[in-house]
C-alpha cells in the first residue's frame, strides 16, 4: 500500500517570501502521478500542480514549482512570492494507475499561513 507523509503540520511565511512544503511517499510502483492540492477555508480542493513519475523535469505552474526526487521518493512544493491568498491547507497526493482504476492517496496536510 502507498503512504504519503507530510511532516510539517503548520508553516508560516511572510508575504512575498518563498516557502517550501515537504512531502515523502512510499511505493513499489514505477508508474504513478504526484499532486499538490490546495484547500482554502471554503473547502474546495484545488489542483495546484501535477507531476508524472516518468518525467525527469520538475513541473512548474507560475509561482508554484516542485522538486521531484524519484529515488528519494520526495516531492516538495515551492511557493515563490507568497500571497495572502495562498493561505490554505496543502495536501500532497499520490496516484497509482492499475487496470481501469486510479485512486488518490493523500497526506495529512500542511496548514500554510501567509502573513503581512
Amino acid at each position, binding site marked *: 500500500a502507498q503512504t504519503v507523509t507530510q511532516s510539517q503540520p503548520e508553516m508560516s511565511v511572510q508575504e512575498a517570501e518563498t516557502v517550501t512544503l515537504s512531502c515523502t511517499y512510499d511505493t513499489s510502483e514505477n508508474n504513478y502521478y504526484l499532486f499538490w492540492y490546495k484547500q482554502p477555508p471554503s473547502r474546495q480542493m484545488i489542483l495546484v500542480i501535477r507531476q508524472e513519475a516518468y518525467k525527469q523535469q520538475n513541473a512548474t505552474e507560475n509561482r508554484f514549482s516542485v522538486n521531484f526526487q524519484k529515488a528519494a521518493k520526495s516531492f516538495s512544493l515551492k511557493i515563490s512570492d507568497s500571497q495572502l491568498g495562498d493561505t490554505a491547507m496543502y495536501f500532497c497526493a499520490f496516484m497509482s494507475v492499475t487496470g481501469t*482504476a*486510479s485512486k*488518490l492517496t*493523500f497526506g495529512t496536510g500542511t496548514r500554510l499561513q501567509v502573513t503581512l
Partner: protein
Amino acid sequence: DAGVTQSPTHLIKTRGQQVTLRCSPKSGHDTVSWYQQALGQGPQFIFQYYEEEERQRGNFPDRFSGHQFPNYSSELNVNALLLGDSALYLCASGRRRAGQGHFGPGTRLTVT
C-alpha cells in the same frame, strides 16, 4: 464549461438514517471517485466508478454504496448512518487512467 458539481451543499441526518449524495463530473470526464474527509484530516478514497461499474474500493464498509449513470453522473449512498460518518464528502472526476485533478465543492454531512 461547468466544473464538477455536487448536491446538496449541506445535509443533517439522524443516526440510523440513509443518505444519498450526488455528483456531476466535469464535461468530457467519464470517471468519478468519491472521498471522505473527516475534520482535520486528508481525504480518504471510498470508491471509483467508470463505465457504470465500481472499479476500485477503499477500506469502507458495505454501508457505503454507489452508482454511476449513463451520463457519467454518480450517487453515493450511505445506509445506517453513524456519528462517525459526519464528514465532508468530495467527488472527483477525470478521464480514464488520466488522473483525478478536478474536485467538486463537497457535501458537508452532519450526523446527529
